[in-house]
């Protein structure tokens, strides 16, 4: 490469850096399409919420809740045109009508607006239709901007009351997009790190670069994201605060700087460095940047992932000849192989209850997402899509979002850990990859 080209490249990367954190650029809008739902979904009717005054409601809360529940694959939401009435208060509910329509649950609600303070209080009530009994009621208050979040919070309550599992509708997903653009007559890639609500709405750009971005990982409190960026033409690990956009460089050693994974206590990152000649797993104490090497093997050791106890990690290694998943206890250094089925198992994560291992698994030469029951050892392939990778489990442990290929485009897709629900999250443009599901973000 000539000096001129190098300088130009450097100048171009500098330009990108200046453009970091610019959020008015158009972001990829993700939509969710259910391709397979549960066999016997719960039937729920969400009546339109009452909005005070004669202005149009800025957000259709009932629609947000309805869509959330439908997209979980576990609910059938009644279309509005099938409803015989739109009750907002208990006294307006005629259970006979809702029984006739076959609804098992009915959600009603109304909004009280404090005009002086521009605050909206949303009150909701969930009824069991056959018994006519109140299941749960409550209220949330926010500004107009926060109404969507209230919708998701109500979805979480409804989902948890009916299924017994906390809802994940208030969570977010971070992912990487790649767009191929013509720059000065030549095709070039533009990479972005974006974050969106779990339903694909409110997408926001966190970083733009002319060089690859990969392996985003959430901090336990959902406030920061660690990732790998090639913006200097070499890999480096950064931490970025979501609220401010402030970045901290964590590691830029010679060789690999990859696969960051945030520890459950939020104080460490597990990373992969090859500064000592070989890809090994290290932990970095974030406050001091102190490194501790925790693997020592001539094979490839990569993709560390903390277990919920924070005392052990799982990782991918080809020390047995092919990539397989191993577990490592940090204090003792004891290593145990976990996967034996298939000749390629990688990038694994354990469900929050510690029972299942979700991973990329090669079966008959095709890469799919598979789940292994750690108690019984049984492996089950969950997906039928093509070139599946980067699985990330939802905080309640029910869903897995992953990257796959649809035609010529990289898209995100999701599947339930039991394999019953499948969906696609196609983007309005470009390739989308490297999804990471946020933890539950405290409101």
């Amino acid at each position: 490469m000539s000096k001129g080209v190098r300088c130009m490249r450097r100048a171009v990367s500098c330009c990108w850096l200046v453009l970091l954190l610019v959020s008015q650029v158009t972001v990829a809008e993700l939509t969710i399409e259910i391709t397979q739902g549960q066999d016997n979904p719960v039937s729920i009717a969400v009546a339109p919420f009452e909005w005070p005054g004669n202005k149009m409601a800025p957000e259709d809360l009932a629609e947000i809740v309805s869509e959330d529940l439908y997209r979980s694959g576990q609910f059938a939401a009644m279309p509005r045109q099938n409803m015989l009435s739109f009750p907002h208060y208990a006294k307006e509910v005629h259970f006979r009508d809702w029984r006739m329509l076959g609804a098992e649950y009915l959600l009603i609600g109304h909004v009280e607006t404090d005009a002086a303070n521009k605050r909206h209080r949303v009150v909701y009530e969930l009824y069991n239709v056959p018994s006519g009994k109140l299941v749960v009621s409550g209220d949330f208050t926010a500004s107009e901007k926060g109404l969507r979040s209230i919708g998701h919070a109500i979805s979480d309550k409804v989902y948890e009351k009916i299924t017994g599992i906390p809802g994940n509708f208030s969570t977010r997903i971070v992912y990487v997009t790649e767009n191929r653009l013509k720059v000065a007559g030549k095709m070039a890639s533009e990479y972005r790190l974006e974050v969106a609500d779990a339903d694909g709405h409110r997408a926001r750009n966190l970083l733009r670069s002319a060089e690859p971005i990969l392996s985003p990982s959430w901090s336990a409190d959902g406030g920061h994201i660690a990732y790998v960026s090639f913006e200097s033409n070499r890999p480096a690990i950064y931490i970025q605060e979501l609220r401010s956009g402030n970045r901290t460089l964590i590691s830029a050693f010679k060789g690999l700087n990859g696969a960051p994974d945030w520890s459950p206590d939020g104080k460490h990152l597990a990373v992969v460095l090859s500064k000592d000649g070989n890809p090994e797993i290290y932990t970095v104490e974030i406050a001091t940047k102190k490194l501790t090497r925790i693997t020592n093997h001539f094979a490839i050791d990569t993709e560390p992932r903390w277990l919920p106890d924070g005392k052990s990690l799982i990782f991918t290694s080809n020390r047995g000849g092919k990539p397989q998943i191993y577990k490592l206890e940090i204090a003792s250094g004891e290593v145990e192989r976990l996967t034996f089925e298939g000749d390629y198992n990688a990038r694994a994560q354990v469900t929050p209850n510690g029972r299942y291992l979700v991973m990329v698994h090669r079966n008959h030469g095709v890469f799919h997402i598979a789940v292994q029951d750690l108690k019984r050892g049984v492996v089950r392939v969950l997906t039928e899509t093509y070139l599946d990778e980067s699985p990330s489990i939802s905080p309640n442990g029910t869903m897995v979002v992953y990257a796959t290929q649809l035609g010529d485009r990289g898209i995100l897709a999701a599947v339930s850990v039991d394999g019953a629900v499948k969906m696609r999250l196609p983007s309005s443009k470009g390739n989308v990859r490297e999804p990471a599901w946020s933890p539950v973000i405290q409101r």
Partner: protein
Amino acid sequence: MQPTTLVRFGMISALVVVLAACGSTGDTKDTGSSSAGASATGATTSAYDSSSDVKGSAVTNAAADEDIAVMAVQLTKVYYFDFDSAVIRSDSTEALDLLAKYLEQNRARSVALGGHADERGTREYNMALGERRAKAVENYLLLQGAYRAQLETVSYGEEKPVMMGHDESSWAKNRRVEAQIAE
């Protein structure tokens, strides 16, 4: 663990040496000298055109520089690998021997070795695999006489494919190490 590492490294080194021996045949030399010859003609033309009054020594230097530049252009700079493998294939050794010779004769030049993988499998594993491939090429060149200071490796994993298809013919082209010669 330590002895195993050494034994393995020893075996790999031995293998590399054997492969290298196979590579450095008469053919290699022929290619090398003929390309140098061809380049001399091309280089002198441009040097004389621009500076017919320049002293002899300067012309020679310019010609030699052009020589090297043309030789650098003519070197094969992409070496392909098998799936999930960082073993240098026999079809790359001849080209690598030439590159090593070039580096031996041009100690001021350095080479950036970019390791790549195909899109199958996981991104971070592929990042490690790309590094393995770049390092395999680096080690080969070191054994053939290049200096460590002349070599630099970086892995791009599966992030920078040259072929966009999702089939074996594209994958085969994407599993590679690219050498970029710099001053």
